């Protein structure tokens, strides 16, 4: 059990022990490269599984089976789709701003790689154990706004431009409640380090102490990754596919990878901060972690295939008039709670 729990740590230790000096620069570099590869593999695997799962959930909710042709119960469908995307012609529109057009999908794809690198997947299992983990996570994920705007502007397409502008308005608005909802937890733990936050949830996960913050985080998180009911950015009924309209082939595939990677990252942060991360009885920590992430992702998909798209002004009202005051209230209540706790415990 203990071995299974620390499986990856043991492997890491073994790799390091291959070097003459396990803490040398070369050993660290090797480990960094391995960590990088692992994060990329996580994103690609997540995308492969989630795209299929999304289609399956879409099917199940509307009483269909979903993809069922390729492999057992259609589980190889995404691989075939990925191969198809690779074979497609790479089209750049004539009037496009070529550099911006080509950089945008790369940025989108690199962001979840950067954010997922600080998530603790198990005890001492964060690829990069950063003291300002949450801070870094939010700062990096805010960049994705820019990538959407770049894609929208660079495509030289009116629909893309509209989608890009929507992305800016929506994601910046929801950044704020997202950030504020996490502040309560930070106030309790007195730490930005994600590993410390998980350890602080040894007795009780923060969803119990911070239910309001969790709800705000989930809503703002869904909006942050542009999923229904907040998928105004790529609203196909209105702006065709928003910033992605002009993309084909692998570039478009990178957007998809990025989208599902972002979704995994946001869910992973929710699992880490509110659901106790890798803490859990009986099973190894990393299994618990991915189970919690899976539950949140499933909830996001369930919501997507139930709700229609929100109106654009209601979207703004929700962010500025509902979520932001509530998250500030949550901070206030948390402060009050901490104050009373200290008073009672005599701290």
């Amino acid at each position: 059990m203990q071995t299974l729990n620390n499986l990856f740590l043991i492997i890491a230790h073994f790799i390091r022990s291959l070097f003459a000096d396990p803490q040398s620069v070369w050993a660290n570099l090797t480990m960094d490269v391995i960590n990088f590869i692992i994060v990329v593999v996580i994103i690609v695997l997540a995308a492969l599984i989630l795209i299929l799962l999304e289609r399956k959930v879409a099917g199940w909710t509307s009483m269909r089976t979903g993809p069922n042709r390729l492999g057992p119960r259609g589980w190889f469908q995404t691989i075939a789709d990925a191969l198809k995307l690779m074979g497609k012609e790479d089209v750049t529109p004539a009037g496009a701003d070529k550099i911006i057009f080509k950089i945008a999908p790369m940025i989108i794809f690199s962001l979840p790689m950067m954010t997922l690198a600080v998530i603790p997947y198990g005890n001492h299992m964060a690829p990069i154990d950063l003291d300002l983990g949450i801070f870094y996570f939010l700062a990096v994920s805010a960049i994705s706004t820019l990538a959407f705007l770049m894609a929208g502007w660079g495509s030289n397409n009116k629909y893309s431009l509209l989608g890009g502008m929507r992305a800016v308005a929506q994601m910046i608005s929801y950044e704020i409640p997202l950030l504020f909802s996490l502040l309560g937890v930070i106030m309790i733990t007195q730490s930005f380090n994600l590993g410390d936050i998980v350890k602080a949830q040894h007795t009780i996960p923060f969803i119990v102490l911070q239910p309001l913050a969790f709800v705000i985080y989930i809503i703002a998180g869904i909006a942050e990754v542009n999923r229904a009911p907040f998928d105004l950015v790529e609203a196909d009924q209105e702006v065709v596919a928003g910033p992605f309209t002009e993309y084909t082939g692998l570039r478009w595939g990178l957007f998809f990878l990025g989208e599902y990677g972002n979704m995994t990252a946001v869910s992973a942060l929710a699992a880490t901060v509110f659901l106790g991360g890798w803490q859990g009885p009986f099973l190894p920590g990393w299994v618990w972690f991915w189970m919690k992430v899976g539950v949140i992702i499933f909830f996001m998909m369930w919501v997507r295939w139930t709700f229609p798209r929100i109106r654009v002004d209601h979207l703004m009202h929700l962010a500025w008039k509902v979520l932001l005051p509530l998250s500030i209230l949550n901070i206030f209540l948390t402060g009050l709670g901490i104050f009373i706790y200290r008073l009672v415990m005599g701290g």
Partner: protein
Amino acid sequence: MSIDKTEELVLNMGPQHPSMHGLFRMIVHLEGETVTEIEPKIGYLHRGIEKLAESRTYTQFIPYTDRLDYLASPHNNWAYVQTVEKLMGVEIPERAEYLRVIFGELARIASHQVMIASTALDIAGWTAWGYAFRDRERILDMYEMTAGSRLTVNCMRIGGMSAEPPAEFWPALESFLDDTPEMLEEYYGIFFGNEIAQGRLKNVGIMPKELAENLSITGPVLRASGVQYDVRKAYPYSIYDRFDFDVPVRYGCDSYDRTIIRMDEIKESVKIIRQAIRDIPEGPIMAKVPKVIKPPVGEVYHRVENPKGELGFYIVSDGSTKPARVRIRPGTFVNLQMLPIVAKGWKIQDVVAIFATLDAVLGEVDK
């Protein structure tokens, strides 16, 4: 060097656009996301059906009427054959009249289900779309077992019906009617009751009563603006005067009422079909009409209540086997006028929703 200048964005939506039903195109002038002007462009699906009628015999034109409003093809058949019957002065058997009512009301339910589904889809309610289409399948199955086709039903002939429903039709119809309350509850639960959907549709695209009357809007779109006008009640045709049913009216004048009024109409249609099943007599389904249909010289106009509006046929006969002129008055073609007026000043996504609530079928608009 200040460049704080705003510019109008002219956006071409359609004919290839995910939310343009059929081949509709509109040129949208945008101020940010706000629509300042809409120019609807129609005609991409024009097949010259009115002109085709002049080179077809009266019977041969029936399959073409299927292709007008293809979501409610029995209604088009009905309007056309009744017009010809009016011209010829043919009395059709009782049983055929009842069967026509049953098929017409089934078509109304099917058409409204598609309308609910497509409105849900246009505001991204994918699953609600699936549910309504799932239930519509059962109506299509009933068409199929009776007339042999699912979409272009072609079930009516001049003088009656093309075929007697088979034995398994009646139990299928009964079970469908029994399940409709459950279906409507499900549509309500997933779509109309959803606060996000209500936010998208309520108080959006207000069409006041006066405007609706001035634009000669008909059908559910008119009744959602608070005008109680239904051809079935106002100028009863066929045997509608024998049935006890209400004309649902709503007074919200907005997209939400234009959508949810279809739910009320489905309930009324179920009521009519139940009465028709109860009262339907035995007997022939075809009147004695000559094999070669040669109406007397003259002209005639007849209108019916299509699920989407008032559908009228105007036929001029020169006494030959082919009509000299056929003019079709499609409901949605007229209803479509309201789009540039009502949708002005709303956001793009509201325009999409308003267009969806019109339930335009471009086969009917472009003819």
